[in-house]
């Protein structure tokens, strides 16, 4: 593979090789600055707290975060909480997305139901789902069920809206073409509407991972039993800012990891398409 590339590059003109080089250089430059900024912030944070310019009791510091992380890791608390949060997110995400696609399909199938449901969708979409927290806890109890329901609620409405928009944007003329062959509703859906919306559905998945995580953390804040969200809230309550900072950093990493998984799926799909 590499050899082929080098061989091929011999065929290019000098100008083209220079162009490729400068392109590669540019990419490296971007990576360098991305990583550099991270290091700079960490170093500055550590330095300022060592020099006592900032209060490490309030602001924590990278070395204290690493210590806390290590303690959590040794005691097994880290894994427990990570697994708890990740499980909730995945289940909430899967349920929210599936339900969202099913509801969107139903509404597309019966255009009358769209006219009826529209105002409800608009209100439900604008309503901050956190406000439903107390009701959920009272009804479902303070446990994983409540948190998953919260994640589902946060992600389902946005999925319905996104997926339905995509369904409704399928060109009227393509539908006419299908009808001219005598296609029925389910043929129009499975041969035209659904396949032309795969890209849209994948981008909805990307949004939904984030949405589901928001729902889970909100739920963990309210339920306060387990999970990264719980660690953060607990840390705040007992004034252990090290724990709060560690929680946030772990959470950032989780968000990135889950998003990358879906992004990987998308690349896989696009490659398959081509």
């Amino acid at each position, binding site marked *: 593979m590499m050899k082929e590339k080098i061989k091929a590059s011999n065929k290019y003109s000098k100008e083209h090789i220079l162009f490729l080089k400068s392109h590669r250089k540019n990419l490296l430059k971007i990576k360098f600055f991305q990583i550099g900024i991270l290091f700079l912030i960490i170093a500055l944070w550590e330095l300022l707290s060592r020099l006592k310019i900032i209060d490490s009791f309030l602001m924590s510091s990278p070395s204290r975060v690493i210590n806390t992380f290590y303690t959590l890791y040794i005691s097994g608390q880290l894994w427990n909480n990570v697994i708890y949060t990740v499980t909730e997110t995945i289940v909430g995400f899967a349920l929210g997305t599936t339900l969202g696609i099913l509801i969107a399909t139903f509404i597309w199938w019966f255009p009358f139901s769209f006219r009826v449901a529209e105002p409800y969708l608009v209100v439900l979409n604008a309503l901050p789902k956190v406000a439903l927290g107390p009701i959920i806890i009272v009804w479902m109890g303070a446990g994983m069920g409540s948190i998953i329901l919260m994640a589902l609620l946060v992600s389902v409405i946005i999925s319905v809206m996104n997926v339905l928009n995509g369904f409704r944007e399928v*060109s009227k*003329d393509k539908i006419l073409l299908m009808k001219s*062959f*005598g296609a029925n509703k389910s*043929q129009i859906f499975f041969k035209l509407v659904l396949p*032309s919306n795969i890209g849209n559905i994948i981008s909805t998945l990307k949004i939904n991972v984030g949405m589901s995580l928001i729902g889970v953390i909100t739920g963990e804040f309210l339920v306060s039993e387990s999970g990264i969200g719980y660690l953060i809230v607990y840390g705040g309550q007992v004034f252990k800012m090290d724990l709060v900072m560690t929680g946030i950093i772990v959470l950032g990493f989780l968000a990135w990891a889950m998003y990358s998984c879906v992004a990987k799926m998308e690349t896989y799909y696009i490659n398959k398409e081509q």
Partner: protein
Amino acid sequence: MELKEKILELKDIKMQYHTLEQETVAVKNINLDIYNGEFLSIVGPSGCGKSTILSIVSGLIKPSAGEVRLNKKCKNISGTDIGYMLQRDYLFEWRTIEQNVLLGLEIKKILDEESYSYAQELIDKYELGKFRNYYPNQLSGGMRQKVALIRTLAVKPQILLLDEPFSALDFQTRINLSEEVWDIIKGEQKTAILVTHDISEAVTLSDRVVIFSKRPSEIRKILIIDFGDSKIQIKEKRKKEKFNEYFDIIWSELNDERKDKGK
């Protein structure tokens, strides 16, 4: 042109559209017989309901009054006998050329060995064999429209409806493709109804040209096109004196139409 059997009859067709503000009569008093194997064009001022007629014939919409008879039988829903070719190709980007061609067969659930091999034959015959496994975005506009035609032909329709199928193409492609499509349609011995606003296209391709009036449209004139030689090439037709004569007749009909209505 020798008279052949009637394949399609339009009787007293009337169509009106309803909006909240008003109802509009698009076409009325349409009586038209179409003969087997004939190439018929419909021209008329824009918005005159030319496409409406095609939609009615295909069964996609029901006329407000009147009836469509196919092979002397009353026809209600769109059947296997009509093929509709639209302004754009509307090929599905996620299907290969071959899969696109098979779309109609799949929908009608008549995809079997026989219909599959017929579709393959068409693909090869019209020089798309090389592109069988290509995706539509790898083909030029003219080729894509040709694929659309083959997709329509694959279900073996008796009558082809062509709704300005060349209007989205550039001039040169349009001329070349219209010739090719004409050859294909005549070769497959299909009856075709073409809606167009391009007078020269109507003159060169058709056996008869129907001129529609402005809305509410009626048939203003039916012009029989005869170059005296049935084997004449499309390109040659453009050079004949008769081409200009026919062109002028249609041109002035459409122009008079504008003046009449202006009064």
